[in-house]
């Protein structure tokens, strides 16, 4: 989201999905701001839509959730980003009541308001002029100490700005042109919450498995592994449907130094955790031998998929490190054939990637969902996605509940001036 110099309303690359999601279910869309791995710029886009869209047709409970998310985002996002969002709202000429309230309460109750005015005076003035109207805003600037006591500040400002004395100071500060932005850093509120994954994911499951692979098995390591699996599994939802897990343990899953054995360790860890959380999981290993499966041999994923489909699972989870190797394209053809016969089975493909780039050389894999598997924290998303594919309505409800819980938890931790008021 970037403001151009032409003064036109702001657009961004994935605007359509954002607007569609908001139109479909405003509450769930807003709650997405609490997703585990959401990026700050996506949160900014959510904040923009929450501020710019009208809430006239929404019921009271939805409005409350939207307002809570707005306040939460205002408290956690950097001030620089929030000013950009406010200016974007101004460009789209959205001036609903909740917009005015959010902008005024954020600006006037900002703990470093005077530093903010010193650095970003024109931006703050633009925001105020947008919500108050140009005439009222200019009247307010005149409320500085040089004029007499006879002028009164607008009532709206008194509600958020505090005493007359404080408002007078603000007005005076706004009349001083700001210095260049390079001189002064934009003040950041100190109590913004850095979004970190919960501590439950910091167990050493992958590290233990890596040691097992690199140093060989020992009773102590196996015990530590079981503990780590139990710990990791306890934070994840359980699934009680038949799932076929195809584990690619071919030679290439060994990976390269310095990340040698990391791909196979990730895949085996996911398999063990799912074993613990899913009562009807059946594993089909391709290649590999022993326990934990040592990466070896060719990867004939198509035959394994056929074997797995014979047991009629509700879902197939395919964990691999790239293309199928024996004959590329066979997995897709099998899935396409099943679609033709009306026997489509949901397939989730997890691509183990130890480097940053996402593997896409195997061509279009439209017939299944592809997710990256890079670290332990991805397990939650994979299980979440499986649940969504299996029973969409139930899983959406669960996701919503989970996000609401997280919002509550985070609200307790962020005792910002926006959330508290």
């Amino acid at each position, binding site marked *: 989201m970037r403001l151009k110099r032409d003064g036109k309303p702001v657009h961004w690359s994935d605007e359509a999905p954002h607007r569609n999601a908001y139109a479909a279910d405003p509450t769930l869309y807003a709650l997405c701001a609490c997703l585990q791995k959401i990026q700050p710029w996506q949160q900014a886009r959510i904040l923009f839509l929450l501020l710019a869209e009208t809430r006239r047709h929404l019921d009271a409970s939805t409005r409350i959730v939207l307002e809570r998310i707005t306040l939460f985002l205002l408290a956690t996002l950097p001030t620089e980003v929030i000013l950009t969002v406010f200016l974007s709202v101004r460009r789209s000429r959205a001036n609903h009541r909740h917009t005015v309230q959010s902008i005024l309460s954020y600006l006037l109750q900002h703990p470093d308001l005077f530093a903010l005015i010193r650095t970003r005076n024109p931006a703050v003035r633009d925001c105020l002029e947008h919500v108050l109207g140009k005439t009222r805003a200019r009247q307010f600037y005149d409320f500085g100490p040089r004029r007499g006591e006879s002028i009164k500040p607008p009532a709206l400002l008194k509600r958020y700005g505090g005493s007359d004395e404080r408002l007078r100071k603000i007005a005076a500060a706004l009349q001083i042109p700001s210095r260049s932005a390079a001189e002064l850093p934009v003040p950041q509120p100190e109590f913004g919450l850095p979004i970190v994954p919960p501590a439950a994911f910091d167990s050493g499951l992958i590290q233990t498995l890596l040691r097992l692979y690199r140093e060989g098995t020992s009773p102590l390591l196996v015990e530590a592994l079981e503990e780590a699996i139990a710990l990791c599994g306890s934070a994840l939802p359980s699934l009680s449907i038949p799932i076929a897990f195809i584990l690619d343990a*071919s030679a290439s899953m060994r990976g390269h130094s310095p990340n040698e054995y990391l791909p196979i360790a990730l895949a085996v860890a996911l398999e063990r955790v799912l074993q613990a959380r899913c009562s009807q999981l059946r594993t089909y290993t391709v290649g590999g031998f022993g326990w934990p499966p040592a990466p070896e041999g*060719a990867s004939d994923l198509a035959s394994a998929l056929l074997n797995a489909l014979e047991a009629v699972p509700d879902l197939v989870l395919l964990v691999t490190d790239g293309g199928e*190797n024996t004959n590329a394209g066979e997995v*897709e053809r099998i899935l396409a054939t099943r679609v*033709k016969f009306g026997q489509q089975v949901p397939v989730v493909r997890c691509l183990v990637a130890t480097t940053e780039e996402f*593997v896409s050389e*195997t061509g279009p894999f439209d017939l299944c969902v592809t997710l990256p598997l890079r670290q332990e924290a991805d397990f939650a998303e994979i299980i979440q996605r499986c649940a969504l594919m299996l029973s969409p309505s139930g899983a959406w409800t669960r996701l919503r509940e989970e996000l609401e819980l997280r919002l509550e938890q985070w609200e307790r931790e962020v005792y910002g001036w926006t959330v508290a008021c």
Partner: protein
Amino acid sequence: MDCRMLTADLFDLSAYRFAAPQRSGALTIVPILGQPSPSPFLSPGEGLQSKWEPSQSVWTLGSESGQAPMLLPLHTGIGVAPRQCVLLSSAALLPPSKRMKLTGEISLFLPSSARQTFDVTENAVLPLPLRGQAWRLRYLQREDRLQPDIRHLEHQFSSHRSFSFSRLLQGSQQAAESFARRFELLTGQTGALFFLDNRPVGLEIAPSPAFFATLWEPLLCGCYGIAALLHEQNLAPMPSPQPYDIEELSQLRTRMFEERHRLDDSLAAVLTTHSQEVYTLEAGQSWHNFRLHSFTSQNYAGQYIEEILPPEPNPPPETAALPRMFRTLFRKNPAPSDTAPRRLHYVSLFAI
């Protein structure tokens, strides 16, 4: 000089077994397994030493081991000093406790653009599109003889912005690295047949599985992968997957394996038509019973090392473990001029 038909009686591959072909994109690989008996050769990773001789202004190579000979594979990179690498324009036998100059009989070339900024990489292999030209110019004593071809290759890859020849030789070319995940090195694999779009483009056999493991990724990513990338670049985008043509879903497995067999048969058919070529044979280095030979035909060139064994009273029966596609193809030497049994140790055959 000797004129024979390529592969039909050149190599005796009857001692090797072939695994199921692996296909991905334009590239198909048939893994070659097995080695009749332990091989004496060390790989360059096992103690190759390089030394600068200031008096003669030349690099010399030697092996740390005092017993076993070392094999320097064709068109591979050898790190002679930190950040300096040379590419061999010929395979070489490095006898134990002997030093070999990096000029003359094994002529070498240094890609001058890569020379200054080069981290030593084990066994980087020249990309297939350059091997033909490198082979033709192998006796030319100029370090920059491949420069026009390298520039041409880089130009062909203009769509891959990050492509550069020196990075490829360092093994850090991301686009080519994906091939390492698309194909699998099998246990006990000593060689591979490479096909590009159903045309045989290479045959690589190393003396032992451990030796081949050191060559596998450079061959896959740097040499044949680059050719496959170039090929795939010119192809139309992959069509959406076609369902199998079957009446009932229960036929799915049968039909899938039928199609696999059909593809395997087409590979074998292609090999038979391509393997009948007239080649010229050139005797090279020899050490004890080991002979290094070079051959060139219209479409292929390469080198191989064979060992001439003492005649056996009772030759072992031919193994019947070959898949049907290869049983007829690489038949045992019918009747070479001398009847001494031979054992193959190394082959590098490539399309030029």
